[in-house]
């Protein structure tokens, strides 16, 4: 038998071995993976990407699926072979859709009033006060304190009210506030230091997204304690508890703790902490949601944080929804 025939025969043996190996693999390993994809029979059926605009370029990637330090490159899809689609190319067709807004007060009426009649376009935004709230007079926010996570950092960076203070850091959570430090008036201050340094007229709190996956009872207890701390240091301030902003439908479907269902339930719990006379509930979501109750895809790049210009819109919305005593 000459060398070439021998090699071909070995190759056929290898093919047989390989087929057997794959068959066994499919039977014992992949089946489990496939069941999760709910398509046990057709291996190709699980490959559907919802977003066709995300056709990928293919340089080697910053393996975004596994090392999440970077999720940057839109060119990582081929490398990771997964259904990652680039967020940068998301469709922006929604840019002139309608804005409806609602603000709900919780308390005696305990009802969510949505003023869906307020129809505006994104380019020409007219935000009107919702029921129970009114537009802020000049200087309303000069004695306001805003406490929050990265989204509040965004508001502070791109749409700060003159005179207002922002105690906001990336990753802030209710249980972290007491030990956190933030830059206020170019000085790094602790939370208790800030509360004792000045009497505020209004205090806005927007927290929760960073602890949305934690035990809810504990978190709400922490939230309540935080309010108590603030109340005892600032007896006259109006406290606004802000709902956590939704994430996009795509981000919500990602399969981790950050999804709109748990954001909604968290917001409901926050609403329960309000009394409607000294503590009010503010919900930006109706103004930023699409028809399915998710953050609009064209409002954000990463699915979680609004673009800078929408932080401005958000601040404008704050301005139109205040309590005047």
């Amino acid at each position, binding site marked *: 038998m000459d060398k*070439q025939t021998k*090699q*071909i025969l070995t*190759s056929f043996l*290898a093919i047989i071995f*390989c087929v057997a190996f*794959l068959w066994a693999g*499919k039977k014992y390993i*992949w089946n489990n*993976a*496939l069941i999760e994809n709910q398509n046990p029979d057709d*291996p190709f059926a*699980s*490959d559907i*990407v919802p977003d*066709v605009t995300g*056709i*990928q*370029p*293919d*340089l*080697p*990637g*910053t*393996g975004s699926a*596994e090392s*999440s*330090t*970077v*999720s*940057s*490159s839109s*060119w990582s*899809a*081929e*490398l990771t*072979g*997964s*259904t990652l689609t*680039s*967020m*940068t*190319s998301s469709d*922006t067709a929604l840019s002139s859709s309608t804005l409806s807004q609602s603000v709900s007060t919780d308390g005696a009426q305990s009802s969510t009033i949505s003023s869906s009649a307020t129809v505006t376009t994104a380019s020409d935004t007219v935000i009107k006060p919702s029921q129970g709230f009114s537009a802020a007079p000049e200087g309303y926010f000069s004695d306001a304190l805003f406490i929050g*996570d*990265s*989204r509040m950092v965004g508001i502070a960076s*791109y749409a700060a009210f003159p005179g207002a203070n922002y105690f906001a850091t*990336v*990753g802030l*959570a209710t249980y972290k506030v007491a030990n956190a430090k933030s830059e206020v008036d170019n000085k790094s201050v602790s939370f208790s230091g800030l509360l004792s340094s000045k009497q505020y007229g209004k205090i806005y709190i927007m927290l929760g*997204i*960073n602890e949305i996956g934690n035990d809810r009872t504990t978190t709400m207890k922490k939230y309540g304690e935080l309010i108590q701390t603030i109340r005892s240091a600032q007896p006259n301030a109006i406290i606004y508890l802000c709902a956590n902003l939704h994430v996009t439908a795509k981000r919500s479907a*990602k399969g981790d*703790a950050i999804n709109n269902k748990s954001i909604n339930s968290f917001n409901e719990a926050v609403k329960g902490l309000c009394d409607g006379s000294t503590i009010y509930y503010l919900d930006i979501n109706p103004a930023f949601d699409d028809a399915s109750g998710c953050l609009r895809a064209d409002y*954000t790049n*990463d699915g979680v944080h609004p673009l*800078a*210009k929408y*932080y401005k819109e958000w601040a404008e919305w704050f301005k139109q929804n205040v309590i005047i005593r």
Partner: protein
Amino acid sequence: MVFSSIHFLLWFLPFCIIAYLLAHNRMKNLILLFFSIVFYAYGAMENPGYLYLILSSVVINWIIGILMDGKGPLRQYWLTIGLIWDFGCLFIFKYLDFFIRIFNYVPLVHLPYANLVLPLGISFFTFQIASYLIDVYRRQVKVEYSLIDLGTYILMFPQLIAGPIVRFSDVQKELHRRRTTLEDFLEGLQLFIIGLGRKVLLANQLGNLWDDLANVGYESVSTPAAWMGIVAYSMQLYFDFSGYSQMAIGMGRMFGFHFPQNFNHPYLSTTMTEFWRRWHMTLGTWFREYVYIPLGGNRCSKGRMYFNMLVVWTLTGFWHGADWNFIFWGMLLFLLLSLEKSGLGKVLNRYRALGHLYMLFWIPMSWLLFAISDMGKLAVYFQKLFGRGGETLLANDWVKYFGIYGKFLIIGLLFCTDIPEKLYKRAQKSRYAPFICIPLMAAVMTGALYCIWRGMNDPFMYFRF
């Protein structure tokens, strides 16, 4: 499984190396093939069909290679069939939706999209297989009768998913007979670690700046921040890609292969022509060997030569991704290269400072076209670079960004030059080499592992909101 993941670094690679070193010489290819299939299977976990796709591709090309041996009259038909299969797969999985989108611009046409996920590394292995078939047809390489050896060549995990695009003629000898020496192994290990460091410690960090700008929205950033962003993106792309190639070459060296160099300090070029001789060199070689020269290269009329260049650069652009911006990017490169060919290049080569300035402008500019697929956003970014395109919401945002990313930008600039490499080579040769190289490598490895580990324990930016 990307190289810069815990699974790969702490499990897959050590196991693979141990098994490889223990194996008998005749079994080494089989071991490599086995681990490569596992590597691909793991990567294609969500789309198991793609494993069958690549394996059947290997078998089909192996059979066609054998059929093309000898003097058969049907050789060219077999070649055609093989190339149709290879490029057909590439077309369907990568470009089909793009063309459907074009057809759908025609009124009343509403074709459904195929919505296929790209198979892992299909652009790379298609080019490798095609080079094998074409070289066999041209009788430049001997037909490979052993499926195991051919499979090892195509599937070899170091270069499987992100290049370098190794041509069969580069490695055929080593496929059959190679020695794994300690020197080679150590050299490979160092290359691998340096590549890993470039990717994890530099590229990933610089990439965050680019992400930050996108998250803010290009219309709201300041002009200095926009320039910083595109410079950071240029560096990220370079360190990411060249780091990945370096890891591949390093691993190849550990297994006794000498893969061709893929990057040679491209950012030191003075012309675009030179840049593309130093950037992704194996891709350039591929297009030269299999497209440019067969079309006539530069040994024909001037007009024909420019036409050939146009074809090559449009295809190069298209290879990088199925979208218009990649085609425009290829066209831009064609324009620059033609200008240089018709005289500009000589000037730039003579006055090298001018050349560097010229490239300092065009490198980020060309990557801008590469980076942003959305034409609207691209236009906004472009205007931003020249002080227009929307209201800047935070005038000194670039000060903030420089505070966070400044150190990476400066280190990045240093690593774009050849100084660190020269210093390291000198250290390797010095008497104190072990006292310099070992701690340095250990530090880079630890740093990279730490960054990866921290990234993983942070379930998708969980505490980053």
